[in-house]
């Protein structure tokens, strides 16, 4: 058991980090908004944490993580004010633009070594810290379900105009979820930076936010547990299948990409509510057969 854990230590850590990132996308999706700014928020969090640790090593890690979550959430407010008025695809495009501006900003910022980024960040992310963060975020998002806020979010997701006519402050709720998503992404960014020793702008491109979205959608976005399932599944599966791919002569990088694409397509087409809806699906189809 211990050998197993040591061999797969970093894989297990990435399951946690990716779960947080998928949950950060889920936060805005839960009120029907597709925001793709989370790689940018993650970058802000990662750089905040890394700079704090490198320049003020005496600051406790808990404080570093809090700052890394708070700063992206603060940045999300001026972003959200104009952008949250946009609907659907337009919101997605505007937030893609924001994410790229953040990344390019770090590329051009000499203080953080530009495109190279910061290296030699001490490894302060212990497994228990990481999983405590995951548990906290899952608990928080889980508590929303069935609460007054949760119902409000659901109403906004189903029909924003109808929700507004019922007296729900749609803008305030959307803003709150954008900030919450930003905070979770920033937290994940800082945890990753203190695990992999480095932060560099290349890690926070458009591809990164696509990964988060894919994991959230594959797991299922109807329930807070979906993104965790999706992130776990898509982080572990390529490792299991890597050997298989190598045996038929496929390079690991393209094979992982291919698998991600095919799984995402299959889920969107045949299982629109994600993997978490699979048990229910199976049960209902078995019932149909029995009847």
């Amino acid at each position, binding site marked *: 058991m211990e050998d197993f854990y040591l061999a797969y230590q970093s894989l297990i850590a990435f399951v946690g980090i990716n779960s947080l990132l998928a949950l950060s996308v889920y936060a805005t999706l839960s009120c029907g908004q597709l925001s793709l700014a989370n790689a940018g928020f993650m970058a802000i969090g990662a750089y905040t944490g890394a700079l704090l640790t490198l320049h003020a090593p005496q600051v406790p890690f808990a404080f570093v993580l809090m700052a890394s979550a708070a700063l992206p959430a603060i940045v999300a407010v001026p972003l959200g004010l104009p952008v949250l008025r946009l609907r659907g695809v337009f919101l997605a495009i505007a937030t893609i633009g924001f994410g790229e501006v953040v990344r*390019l900003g770090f590329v051009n910022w000499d203080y953080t070594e530009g495109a190279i980024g910061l290296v030699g960040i001490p490894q302060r992310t212990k497994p228990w810290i990481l999983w405590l963060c995951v548990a906290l975020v899952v608990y928080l998002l889980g508590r929303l379900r069935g609460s007054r806020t949760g119902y409000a979010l659901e109403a906004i997701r189903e029909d924003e105009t109808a929700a507004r006519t019922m007296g729900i402050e749609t803008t305030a709720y959307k803003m709150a979820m954008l900030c919450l998503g930003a905070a979770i992404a920033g937290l994940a960014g800082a945890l990753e930076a203190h695990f992999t020793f480095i932060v560099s702008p290349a890690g926070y491109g458009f591809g990164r936010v696509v990964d988060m*979205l894919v994991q959230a959608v594959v797991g299922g976005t109807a329930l807070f547990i979906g993104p965790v399932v999706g992130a776990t599944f898509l982080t572990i599966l390529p490792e299991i299948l890597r050997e298989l791919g190598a045996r038929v002569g496929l390079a690991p990088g393209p094979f992982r990409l291919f698998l991600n694409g095919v799984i995402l397509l299959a889920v969107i087409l045949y299982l629109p509510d994600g993997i978490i809806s699979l048990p229910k699906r199976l049960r209902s189809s078995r019932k149909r057969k029995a009847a």
Partner: protein
Amino acid sequence: MGQQILNGLFVGSIYALFAVGYTLVFGVLDILNLAHQAVFMLCAFIALALVESLHLSIWVALPLAILAGGLIGIGLERLAFRPLRGRAGSNISGLISSLAMATVFEAIAAQIFGPDISRFPQGTFPDVQWHPGEATVSLLQICIAGISVLLMAVLTWLLQRTRLGRSIRAVAENPRAARILGIDVDKVISVSFFLSSALAGAAGVLFGLAFNSMSPDVGRSVELKGLAVIILGGMGSVPGAVIAGFAIGLVEVFTVAHVGSSYRDIVSFAVLFIVLVARPRGLFGQIATREA
């Protein structure tokens, strides 16, 4: 100054060509096809393979790659968009399924051509240059701009003057009404995808020739530029995309010359952001009516 305007128009013509197809599909389906950039990339590689392995002239490889692009587009529509049609919230799930297809295409290209940069063999295109005044113009640049403008003109003619164009515009306006009037909506959507992807393919081959460095993720940066172009031009507006393509190309070249090359990409995103916030319908877009 003259040189910069020339370079801007030349880069802009490729952006415009890419964005015209992008905006066409958005106009017809209201779906952002994020696999557009992958078709762009695949066609550049198809042309490369035809030139390199079959020793075809680029003048044969280009139309073949464009045709391949169109066929890929039809397949893409069948696989990723048609099954979702009529589902609730289909424009977000369509966006995600196109993303899935883009990932698959990139994986295929990376498996076949490797993740590194590929180049056209030397002499694929004759290296001829002129020097009007202080500027330098190459035959390649003129051909790229010429082919782009020609293809965009053909598309405009097709949309404005032919029966097919009228049915595409009718479906873009209102699919249900178009169906009642006897238009085969599925066929029209297929044709739009063919046209859109063929144009993406043309842009891809020309881009590959112009910069002569292709990798499986080459489409990503162009995709984001293309987004800026179609937003500035107005989603769904073909003339808007043409003008915005040239505008973004020019702005980019002037930014590189006067501000610094590392700020090039920030400018297009700044444009994208400002337009979305200040005038979301862009330069030529229609005011969208809310659908309940």
